[in-house]
């Protein structure tokens, strides 16, 4: 156990050598500090790398091996990119220079020649691992800093542009829309042509600049800015100054004038009201004289203005907007941009407005910024490789999730967030990312709040060793109540002192199964003719009540059968006999309470088990007289034996036996009455 625990924290070294002796020797030298994996040849090593690439800190590789030799192994590692994450030290007995050179060319970091010297082996192994770890760490640090910086930039720009928005009496949504639209249009444009001097890595910068497009409105008096009616010509002239003014503001940032963001921002501010036909303002530029960034933002601005509600107008539909733009009712645009608009039309129609409602989609955000960073920094191969892996995993996950027709989810505690699989979100009619799930339509809607709390509590109560929760709940899915099985696994952070961070899991519809099961349960527990319980089920329930119910055991059992029932069958036939039985069963149901236990225990034998408070005789008398009566031509008369649970110490079999003995004595003494068990009846049955 302890060694197992310790092994978990040790770094892993993979030794690849066909000679068992060599592996054993190296393992002996290293196993106190490392966990050793062994492979006899390159093929076995590849199999290990395939699944554990990320966990292996170092590989010691021999050259001369059967099946797949060292060079072939290195070639495979290069092809799969493993060589970038797993440092390799050669351990061959070969010292021919051409071999050594070739090994270095294939990405080997160091060479340990034979014979193995323990100190050399350990030192080389340690320093290579440290070097690789340092490199990884540095790459991550650079990545983190870039991310941080990018976040700050984006934040500052957003604050700045929201300033104008709020003054304009609008929420910050317009800036967000412009950003998204600009990005979509640019991506589509790049797809179509490289005639404009922009590349993929410029897109984030242009989107940032686009957010600043209306910054010049800061100089427009708010009476004009927020005037609900039509602007007069003079007012409109003032309004129009915002383009040139915004550009001026940016031009004044003399310290940064050569920055791409400022330059592009200038273009966008100044010329986002120009028209492709030359009839725009402030400069009346025409066609390609207008910088492409400004053209794109102009189109984005118009699309968003039309599809959003403003003080002076309602929102137009997506279709109507596209139609108006194409008909030239709202400006004149570059034909290629209109094509781009067509291309992204479906995305806009289906996702644009949900995109902004659920703009809280951290995974996508982070992944995309990282992607952009990596594209921007050609040197970070390691991250690029990791991204490929991530992308690969994501595709795999999505594909299987789609196939399985299950709702899959990921839940994190801080920040409290639930992420549904694409299929799951569609099926539930919810967004993929659900912030604060307890208050959402998921935790208070699909789940009842009590059930959801219970599930979360169950997950919190798990341990890293027993992380799985498996429970059935009734979920409300699109207006239907469905029995669903929730299987989830808690997730833990850190190995030393694991902390609960959330869970992953899936929800499977088991409604039909549950229904079938509960039908079977009902069938197994009930008498098919009368719908009363059968003897076995009645016994089960009574035993449960006797052990866990009223501690004073104030229960009675009535056991009875119909006198001369055989005659009913003989004289009127079995069908009539069944009718009598059904009639009696109905009378029993009518004259007892729902929590009394009523059963048909044999052909014409019945049982009633009930609780009482102080007296019991009146109830017995009432039930007895209600049961006695006439059904068609057959007069119903019964013999009944009664026993009290407190007399038998709560033992079912004794209780039943006592009632049975009382019943027997009634029958022996001429039928047609009831009788409580007493000591005089003891062993009346067995004595016979």
């Amino acid at each position, binding site marked *: 156990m302890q060694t197992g625990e310790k092994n978990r924290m040790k770094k892993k070294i993979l030794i690849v050598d066909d*000679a068992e002796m*060599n592996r054993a*020797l190296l393992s*002996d030298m290293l196993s106190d500090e490392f966990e050793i994996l062994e492979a006899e040849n390159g093929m076995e090593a590849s199999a290990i790398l395939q699944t554990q690439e990320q966990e292996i800190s170092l590989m010691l590789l021999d050259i001369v091996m059967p099946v797949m030799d060292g060079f072939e192994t290195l070639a495979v590692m290069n092809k799969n990119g493993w060589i970038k994450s797993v440092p390799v030290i050669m351990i061959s007995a070969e010292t021919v220079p051409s071999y050594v050179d070739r090994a270095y060319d294939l990405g080997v970091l160091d060479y340990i020649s034979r014979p*193995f010297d323990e100190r050399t082996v350990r030192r080389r192994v340690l320093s290579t691992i440290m070097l690789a770890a340092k490199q990884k760490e540095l790459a991550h640090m650079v990545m983190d800093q870039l991310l941080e910086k990018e976040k700050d930039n984006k934040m500052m720009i957003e604050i700045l542009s929201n300033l104008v928005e709020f003054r304009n009496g609008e929420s910050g949504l317009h800036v967000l829309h412009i950003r998204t639209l600009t990005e979509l249009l640019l991506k589509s444009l790049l797809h179509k042509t490289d005639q404009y001097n922009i590349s993929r890595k410029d897109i984030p910068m242009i989107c940032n600049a686009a957010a600043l497009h209306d910054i010049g409105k800061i100089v427009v008096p708010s009476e004009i800015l927020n005037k609900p009616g039509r602007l007069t010509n003079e007012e409109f002239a003032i309004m129009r100054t915002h383009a040139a003014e915004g550009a001026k503001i940016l031009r004044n940032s003399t310290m940064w004038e050569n920055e791409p963001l400022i330059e592009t921002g200038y273009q966008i501010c100044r010329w986002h009201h120009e028209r492709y036909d030359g009839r725009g303002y402030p400069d009346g530029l025409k066609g390609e004289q207008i910088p492409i960034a400004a053209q794109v933002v102009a189109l984005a601005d118009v699309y968003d203005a039309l599809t959003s509600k403003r003080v002076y107008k309602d929102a137009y539909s997506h279709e109507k907007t596209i139609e108006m733009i194409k008909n030239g009712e709202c400006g004149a645009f570059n034909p290629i941009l209109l094509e781009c608009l067509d291309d992204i039309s479906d995305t806009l129609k289906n996702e644009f407005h949900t995109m902004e409602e659920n703009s809280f989609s951290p995974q996508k955000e982070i992944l995309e910024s990282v992607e952009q960073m990596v594209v921007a920094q050609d040197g970070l191969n390691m991250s690029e490789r990791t991204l490929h892996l991530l992308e690969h995993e994501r595709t795999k996950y999505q594909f299987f999730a789609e196939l399985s027709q299950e709702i899959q989810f990921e839940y994190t505690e801080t920040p409290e967030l639930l992420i549904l699989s694409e299929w799951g979100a569609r099926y539930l009619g919810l967004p993929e990312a659900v912030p604060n799930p307890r208050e959402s339509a998921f935790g208070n809607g699909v789940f009842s709040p009590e059930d959801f709390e219970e599930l979360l509590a169950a997950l919190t109560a798990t341990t890293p060793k027993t992380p799985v929760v498996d429970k059935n709940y009734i979920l409300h899915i699109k207006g239907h109540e469905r029995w669903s099985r929730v299987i989830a696994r808690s997730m833990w952070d850190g190995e030393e002192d694991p902390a609960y961070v959330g869970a992953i899991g899936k929800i499977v519809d088991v409604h039909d199964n549950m229904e079938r099961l509960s039908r079977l349960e009902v069938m197994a527990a009930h008498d098919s003719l009368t719908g009363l319980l059968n003897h076995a089920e009645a016994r089960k329930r009574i035993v449960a009540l006797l052990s866990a119910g009223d501690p004073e055991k104030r229960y009675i059992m009535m056991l009875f059968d119909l006198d001369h029932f055989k005659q009913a069958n003989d004289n009127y036939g079995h069908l009539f006999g069944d009718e009598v039985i059904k009639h009696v069963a109905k009378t029993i149901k009518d004259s007892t309470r729902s929590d009394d236990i009523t059963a048909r225990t044999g052909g014409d034998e019945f049982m009633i088990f009930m609780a009482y408070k102080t007296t019991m005789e009146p109830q017995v008398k009432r039930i007895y007289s209600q049961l006695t009566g006439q059904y068609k031509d057959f007069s119903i008369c019964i013999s009944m034996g009664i026993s009290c649970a407190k007399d038998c110490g709560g033992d079912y079999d004794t209780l039943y036996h006592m009632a049975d003995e009382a019943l027997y004595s009634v029958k022996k003494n001429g039928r047609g009455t009831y009788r409580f068990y007493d000591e005089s009846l003891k062993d009346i049955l067995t004595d016979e």
Partner: protein
Amino acid sequence: MTVRECYETMGADYDGVLSRLRTDERVKKFLLKVLNDKSYELLCTSLKERNMDEAFRAAHTLKGVCQNLSLDRLYVSSNEMAERLRGGQAYGEDIEPMLEKVEEDYMLTISCIQQLAQEI
């Protein structure tokens, strides 16, 4: 017989191996493993079957083992054999005396190690 005596009898370098593997105990542990190493047998059968690639790998492994344990005498003859067989060279009459030399050294080495093993 001590491990050092065993090394001296089979023409091997005890001081060399001890300086690299650090403890007498470890030297002994791996020396005894030579008894289970099948590369010598593999070399013989591969040569008989004229499977030259396999023969090279076997000689190479044997040489590597000797190197790690400073079995100098057997290392010299097995290394010579490995070099002769490198690159899938064809079988030739010169191989026979080489194999005889390897056999002689191997038998000496093995008998010394067996003797050591019996005394434990």
